């Protein structure tokens, strides 16, 4: 007992306690629900068996049923468009802004801080704001597009199946750009200035310096941001709830919203869990990319 105590005080026991506490917490709050979720995806779940743990095992029936449904593939397609569109938009605009603020004109850091406002706002509030912007009859977006002559008639962004998904993507890009910009700004700031001076003396113009110094030096930051972006966009739920509710007719539905809809509105918990498991696979993949890209950081 005494040995144990002293080991905890100043031996390796202390390290183990430090590691065990967060691991235990993680297992309890994230690991167990995850396992339970996987278990549910192989069971038959209805309103009456909700409270029990051991329910009839059905093998891969939930999975085959899910892919037999006509809306499954379109929703998976929507999810892919949503993820790729959001990440591309957030990243490109975020990178552009980060480069812009990198020039360090007077007031740059102050203005950059202001951009964080979008990131601080809850998704539902952002959704509400975009509802106004996107509104068919009196929305600012339609007004601007009309005035600049890009469109002749109003687009009903939220209720037109051709546009509903893109309406949410636009809002999500707005929401995530600031986060991208901040991380990319940090990455840019960590590149030593003398590398640019050396490259300049070596004859590289601004464009060549960007391609041969900035981008390669930012590789790990970019890898981290894209994989975090994948995780965040796969989690994006509030905007769908606030703007389109997945409609009309699933035209803007994505897996994360659909899983919730199946579980808590149609009470088909097994299917909801099945979709979640499919998503977990993707998130795991993103996590591995994230961990690898932060591990392979270039150090001078």
């Amino acid at each position, binding site marked *: 007992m005494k040995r144990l105590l002293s080991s905890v005080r100043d031996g390796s026991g202390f390290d183990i306690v430090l590691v065990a506490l967060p691991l235990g917490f993680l297992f309890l709050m994230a690991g167990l629900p995850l396992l339970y979720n996987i278990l549910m995806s192989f069971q038959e779940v209805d309103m009456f068996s909700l409270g029990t743990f051991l329910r009839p095992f059905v093998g891969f029936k939930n999975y085959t049923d899910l892919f037999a449904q006509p809306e499954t593939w379109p929703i998976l397609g929507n999810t892919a468009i949503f993820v790729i569109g959001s990440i591309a938009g957030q990243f490109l605009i975020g990178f552009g802004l980060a480069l812009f603020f990198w020039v360090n004109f007077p007031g740059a850091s102050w203005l950059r801080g202001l951009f964080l406002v979008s990131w601080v706002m809850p998704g539902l509030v952002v959704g509400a704001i975009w509802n106004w912007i996107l509104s068919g009859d009196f929305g600012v977006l339609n007004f601007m597009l009309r005035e600049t002559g890009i469109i002749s008639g109003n687009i009903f962004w939220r209720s037109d199946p051709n546009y509903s998904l893109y309406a949410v993507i636009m809002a999500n890009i707005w929401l995530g750009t600031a986060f991208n910009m901040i991380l990319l700004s940090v990455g840019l700031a960590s590149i*030593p200035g*003398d*590398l640019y*001076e*050396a*490259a*300049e*003396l*070596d*004859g*590289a*113009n601004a464009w*060549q310096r960007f391609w*041969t*110094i900035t981008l*390669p*030096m930012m*590789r790990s930051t970019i890898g981290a941001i894209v994989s975090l972006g994948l995780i965040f966009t796969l989690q994006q739920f509030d905007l769908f709830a606030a703007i389109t509710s997945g409609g009309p007719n699933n035209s803007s539905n994505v897996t994360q919203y659909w899983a919730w809809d199946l579980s808590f509105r149609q009470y088909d918990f097994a299917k909801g869990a099945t979709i979640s498991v499919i998503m977990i696979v993707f998130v795991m993949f993103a996590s591995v990319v994230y961990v690898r890209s932060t591990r392979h950081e*270039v*150090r*001078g």
Partner: protein
Amino acid sequence: MTKQIELSGVNKYYGAFHALKNIDLSIDKGSFVALVGPSGCGKSTLLRSLAGLESISTGDLKIAGELMNNVPPRKRDIAMVFQSYALYPHMTVEQNLTYSLRIRGVAKAEARKAAEEVAATTGLSQLLGRYPRELSGGQRQRVAMSRAIIRHPKAFLFDEPLSNLDAALRVHMRKEIRTLHDRLGATSVYVTHDQIEAMTMADHVVVMKDGVIEQQGAPLELYDKPANKFVAGFIGSPAMNFVPAVVGEDGRSLAVDVGEKQTIVLDRQLQPGRKVTAGLRPEHLHFVEPGQGVFRLPVGIVESTGSATYITTSTVAEVTIVETSRRPVRTGDVIDVSIRPADVHVFDGETGLRV
């Protein structure tokens, strides 16, 4: 001799701060020029102005006869070795070396060949595939040099390239850089705060202080005829002793004030009664037999390095003597010291200028 770099009336302001004041400097093709001076005197600023990394506020800068004031760094054809080396961390040694060639669109095979040739001369052949983080400090330094050499630039600029190396390697690299310079027939400008480096490596030494060139010339010229007290104190190690003195009635002797007045004879005629500062180099002061010296000094501290003994006197104006003989001396002794009249430097008591 053609002039490779010419600066005339160059001034540099950082806002209200006047960093370079009326710099006139011309550098011959093929010469090795060292810029020395205490920290903050503007050495790096001057070097970076040559490279174009800083723009000069007024004056003219010519490289190989062409006005360069508004030419961007990449078009000046000048290579720089940074104190931090500034190697590209995401590139191998070979890629670091060939960067400038690849930017200019030189074919891959040709660039590779050039890298191998340069690496052979700088001893990097075995390391071409490594990343900078896998190299020692000395090896990084060589990569930084090789990266400059491969370009055959109009001039090499070095900003304290050896300050991150240990003493032994520094002495070694000193010779190596100079040898490379001679072999390439290059024009080099070398910034250092170490006057020994400047004296041993350069053909032409420029001493700066507070943005002003105090004196420039051949190393021995600066040592033998320092233009003022600052240069006299800066060049030479250990530093020159300065003692207040008054020119004697006859104008050919100095009454030196080291605790008590002692007289040394001069080899030139000065205005009698003039207040001056006498500059006595430690290595020119000799510890001699009693009765043979020009003055007598009480010994304060004795430090021996084996090859030389450093004697510091306990007088008000401290005097350091470097003695290479092993003659025994202890704290508290009073010793006789001699100096040749020709070795006595005299500076004006007020302006500090050489008399």
